[in-house]
């Protein structure tokens, strides 16, 4: 029974740690993206005083 307990325990602990790590990294990245997007937006507005819309940068374009 000890082996059975540890097999399931290891699986669930590993999953919990992985999901927790993913959610932490995700929250941190969202915060960084929001901050940078705000800064880039502010910089673009400073360069375009007419208030022309700022096009967001393309994501995932071929390298």
């Amino acid at each position, binding site marked *: 029974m000890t082996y*059975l307990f540890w*097999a399931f325990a*290891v*699986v669930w602990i*590993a999953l919990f740690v992985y999901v927790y790590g*993913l959610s932490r990294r995700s929250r941190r*990245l969202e915060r960084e993206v929001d901050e*940078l997007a705000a800064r880039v937006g502010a*910089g673009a507005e400073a360069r375009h005083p007419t208030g022309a819309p700022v096009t967001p940068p393309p994501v*995932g374009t071929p390298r």
Partner: protein
Amino acid sequence: MLAALYGAFVYARREVVMGDIQRIFYVHLPLAWVGFVAFGHAAWAGIRYLQTGRQEWDVVGASAAEIGLLFATLVIITGSLWARPVWGTWWTWDPQLVTYLILWLIYAGYLVLRAAAGDDPRQARFAAVFAIVGFVDVPLVWLSARYLRALSPVIFTTRSIGLAPSMAWALLAGLVAWSLLYIVLVRARIRLGVLELRLQALIDERA
């Protein structure tokens, strides 16, 4: 997932020879199956990346390989915890175990390669090729259990499942639950990868 746990611990009848230790099988085999699916997903994303050159496919490949490697690691651990009381050893150089260890090393290598690639498209392409070629080992793992006198029991044959009905249902519940969990995890991991791309694009724009 609750149904899978209920199936593994309550619904499936106790195996006569191995006893309760056999219940590890209801998490071990679904993890192995979903690990294979994840590596197949990574190989397919590698093909798409080579065809299109779009970074999204690189992200999909890395996400699938990362979760596949996590599952493969858990397969090795749960397999060892099963082998110790049943075979009397934590590890043996059985053909199936060796080919599975090679598979684990290939995808660990892929993730190291991809992490080292950074913005270099040539290295990213090389990593994609690595993921595709690495998938060749998956059928070898499968076939080694059948044709190379491996110690692992062969459950599925062309004639039968080789399990009592309650055991087969518990296994099916596990396969469905872990497959669904894979979908949830890979979607979350891809979302994280896309956020990383977005952040890099913003940093490049500022520079």
